[in-house]
């Protein structure tokens, strides 16, 4: 318990330090949008931009929305005719490679020059492609809120609020079905469990992996722990996955996500079948690798908290496999892990996956809770 306390205090201090960092200065971004700006005055959330002679040249407002790794902030400038003069991102916590991908699509350049009534908030419709849904959603939401702010304050126009409805589709249905099937199969045991596990994992590989590219990652967990909650309307599946992971580990005493749902675990098992060797490392090597994994996970979360950049914690190679994008480290890890999977049983799950460390914490918390709660002593089931 002492080690948990030390880790908890260290992470809490790192997060507190990260949260105390100063808010970004918007003036440089506003000056890039309005190169003739001489002075900038803030009133009721809207910046009035004046030239050297004190004449108004436009207005600017900040928009903010949660993306993949946390809040994404941008500044939108609107000129005196009500046209968007420019858009500048002032701060974001997205995975750099995804942000570059979204930014290179030139959405802001397409939006610039539009009348504020006619700004196109459908990212895909404007740029034709997307591969980073949460980042592009955050850009659109923050753009919309900034434009609405200027329209309301300076033009006395209330822009219609975006339609809000839960996105409940194939992905959400599959996630719920996989958890239900996993719990049922785990209770059933025997060959049923084996076959259902294969069916669930292959479904997860296809739908959660290759189709939606949205397995649970350390960056998403760190983002939640940092207090950045992605929009629940468009991220129901993400919440289902997180709640399923926590609830089944705490109450069911089995991590159903890793056993039945995780697409990367399925990929390793498939490669393992092709390799057909299934070697097991010695217990000593296993212990060393597991300890190393805990240290890596702690370091990744610590770095993400202290810099308040949850995406920094993302060292998993999921994006490289499922979205064919990622850093050099992630591509290298993907190669090593899947090649190793030919001879060693699910090496990522055993020795590298951060969820395993989190699962151990959850299981210990669950055991502690069962010991503390009256009538729920550990081992009372038998």
């Amino acid at each position: 318990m002492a080690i948990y306390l030390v880790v908890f205090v260290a992470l809490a201090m790192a997060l507190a330090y990260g949260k105390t960092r100063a808010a970004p200065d918007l003036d440089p971004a506003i000056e890039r949008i309005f190169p003739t700006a001489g002075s900038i005055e803030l009133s009721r959330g809207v910046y009035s931009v004046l030239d050297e002679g004190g004449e108004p040249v436009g207005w600017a407002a900040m928009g903010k929305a949660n993306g993949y790794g946390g809040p994404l902030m941008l500044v939108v400038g609107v000129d005196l005719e009500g046209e968007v003069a420019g858009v500048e991102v002032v701060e974001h916590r997205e995975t750099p490679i995804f942000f570059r991908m979204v930014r290179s699509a030139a959405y802001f350049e397409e939006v610039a020059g539009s009348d504020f009534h006619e700004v196109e908030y459908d990212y895909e419709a404007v740029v034709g492609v997307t591969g980073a849904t949460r980042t592009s959603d955050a850009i659109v939401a923050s753009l919309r809120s900034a434009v609405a702010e200027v329209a309301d304050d300076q033009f006395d126009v209330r822009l219609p609020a975006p339609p809000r409805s839960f996105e409940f589709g194939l992905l959400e249905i599959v996630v719920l079905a996989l958890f239900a099937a996993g719990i049922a199969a785990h209770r059933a045991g025997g060959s049923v469990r084996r076959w259902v596990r294969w069916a669930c994992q292959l479904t997860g590989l296809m739908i959660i992996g290759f189709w939606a590219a949205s397995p649970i990652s350390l960056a998403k967990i760190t983002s939640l722990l940092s207090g950045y909650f992605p929009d629940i309307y468009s991220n129901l599946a993400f919440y289902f996955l997180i709640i399923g992971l926590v609830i089944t580990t705490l109450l069911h005493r089995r991590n159903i996500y890793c056993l039945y749902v995780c697409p990367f675990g399925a990929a390793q098992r498939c490669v393992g079948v092709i390799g057909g060797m299934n070697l097991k490392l010695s217990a000593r090597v296993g212990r060393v690798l597991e300890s190393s994994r805990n240290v890596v996970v702690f370091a990744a979360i610590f770095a993400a908290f202290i810099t308040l950049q949850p995406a920094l914690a993302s060292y998993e190679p999921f994006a490289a496999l499922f979205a064919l994008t990622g850093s050099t480290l992630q591509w290298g890890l993907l190669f090593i892990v899947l090649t190793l999977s030919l001879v060693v049983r699910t090496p990522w799950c055993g020795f590298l996956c951060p969820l395993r460390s989190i699962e151990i914490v959850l299981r210990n918390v669950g055991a502690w809770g069962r010991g503390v709660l009256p009538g729920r002593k550990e081992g009372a089931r038998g």
Partner: protein
Amino acid sequence: MQIFNSGFFWFVEGILFCLVLVGFRAWAQGRGIPLPAWKWATLLLWMLLAGFTIAFVGTSLGENEATAAMRGGLLFGLITVIAGVGLWRLLLTGAREA
């Protein structure tokens, strides 16, 4: 990389390629491993895949696209390695009991 443009290199490469195939055939016969047409076809497909991987890395490097060479090499290399292991196990099927 002038050597890759020389006829001599490709002449030697062709000889080595044929030697590898002939050697593999002899090795398989020695162990009683049947080599029907579908195994040869699969082997040739895998060789095409491996050749494509090497060509991808080589041409990317030639175009000074080091990142593309590395990432493409890792991805196609991974597919080649996994397919190679699977193919190897397939090739060994039907071996005569000693």
